[in-house]
């Protein structure tokens, strides 16, 4: 195909080769020097860590024919989690997890802080998006049969991630501490308490006592911003490791293609 690009302006055109650099490999432009510095830095790190092998192993995998947009739902879920993590850190800079001040701190963030309402909105709606994406990702895995041998353990880890995500939703719902979040949490704890025999103790554990008390909110806050995100991040690590190790499946409508010569090899 003919080169249809317009010619480069003179300043950006590569310099003609000097007589001593006729091998065609030497680069001398400022961009080239910068690239060389970058490569040298990465080489320096890689020589001491051997990370590049792992990175290649993780990122440049062979994927089956027929891979399509449905296969991006897992990454989409992970990016939703990352977005929650980043916006959550910003919210944590303003939030005050005490029963008397929580609502006021959220009101201040929403109404007074530049972009506060936007970041809070991202976190609030992002949580819904994350739950939806988790379920879509789960449905994709189920309908494509991608939970079958040898990927059962990854399905189990995925279910743990689903449960952790729902716990995140439950603990996070209380934090704005308005009427809705307070009463919804009361209702949620009461539902949890109707489990026979252990229910009453689970409720007491969740709210740190028989009534909604002094440390209930901070307990939910600690779970929401420390314990659960840590567990989710660790589980995502295990999930991704297994994906990279086992590879992805072809969609169910793809037929296995056996090249003629490989059949010959078997015989």
């Amino acid at each position, binding site marked *: 195909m003919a080169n249809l690009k317009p010619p480069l302006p003179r300043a950006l055109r590569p310099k003609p080769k000097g007589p001593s650099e006729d091998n065609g490999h030497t680069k001398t432009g400022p961009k080239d020097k910068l690239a060389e510095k970058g490569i040298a830095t990465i080489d320096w790190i890689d020589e001491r860590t051997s990370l590049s092998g792992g990175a290649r192993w993780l990122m440049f995998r062979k994927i089956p024919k027929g891979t399509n947009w449905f296969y991006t739902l897992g990454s989409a879920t992970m990016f939703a989690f990352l977005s929650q993590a980043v916006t959550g850190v910003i919210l944590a800079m303003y939030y005050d997890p005490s029963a008397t001040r929580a609502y006021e701190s959220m009101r201040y963030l929403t109404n007074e802080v530049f972009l506060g309402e936007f970041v809070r909105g991202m976190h609030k709606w992002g949580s819904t998006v994350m739950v939806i994406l988790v379920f879509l990702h789960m449905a994709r895995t189920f309908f494509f049969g991608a939970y079958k041998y040898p990927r059962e353990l990854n399905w189990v880890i995925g279910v743990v991630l689903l449960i952790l995500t729902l716990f995140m939703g439950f603990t996070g719902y209380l934090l704005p501490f308005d009427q809705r979040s307070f*009463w919804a949490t*009361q209702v949620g704890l*009461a539902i949890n308490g109707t489990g*026979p025999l252990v229910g*009453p103790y689970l409720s007491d554990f969740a709210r740190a006592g028989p009534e909604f008390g*002094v440390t209930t909110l901070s307990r939910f806050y600690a779970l929401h911003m420390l314990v659960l995100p840590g567990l989710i991040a660790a589980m995502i690590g295990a999930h991704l490791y297994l994906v990279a190790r086992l590879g992805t499946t072809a969609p169910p409508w793809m037929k296995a293609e056996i090249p003629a010569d490989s059949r010959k090899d078997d015989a």
Partner: protein
Amino acid sequence: MARERKQPKKKLTTDEARIPGAFEGETVSRRRFMTGTAHAAGGIAVAAFTLPAVGLAVAPVFEKQETRWEAVGPVADFPDDTYIPRTLTLVTGIGDVGKSTVYIRKYSTQLDDEPRDEYNEYIAISTRCMHLGCPVRFVAASERFICPCHGGVYDFQGKVDGGPPVRPLDRFYTRVRNGSVEVGPRFSVNSELKRFSPRDPGMPLDGIGQYLYPARPTARKLPGT
């Protein structure tokens, strides 16, 4: 060496397994001993911070609740044919969140048939719905308690009249001191208004309910009631 280490089926002493430097009759090699010691030390170190942390998180379940009595007004304030709302502080130190409305009236000799004692000369009804814990309100026109969340309805005595609640509204102990009514700890009742130690919403107390949903050891009904 490797071959010999794989082979043994019965437990060999280290000198029988011909591990160099072993003393006669030793059953645990020094390497195994050191490995075990390192694992044990690690386990103790982890337990040293895990157990206190778990203990701290679980402790509130076993914390004894103090019995508080709060004066809500002179005895003349409370008739026996309608409820008077009063605000009660259930938990201190958390502002409005720790407060709850409680409806109070005098024991009515025509209406109430539960045995009278020093704790029910005045009847204090909790506003916590026994379905899932929403706040009910008393509607004087219909003489009923109505829950806004899922349509629970209770009659004048707090017994379930309709909707999903599983037992009558909780009550509080009351007593009269120096001419004013004092409201004390919460207790739960079954459909015959028999007193039980306080339970959370959603836990029935009829039939085997009281055994399926055990009372917490830290908050009991008053002894002898």
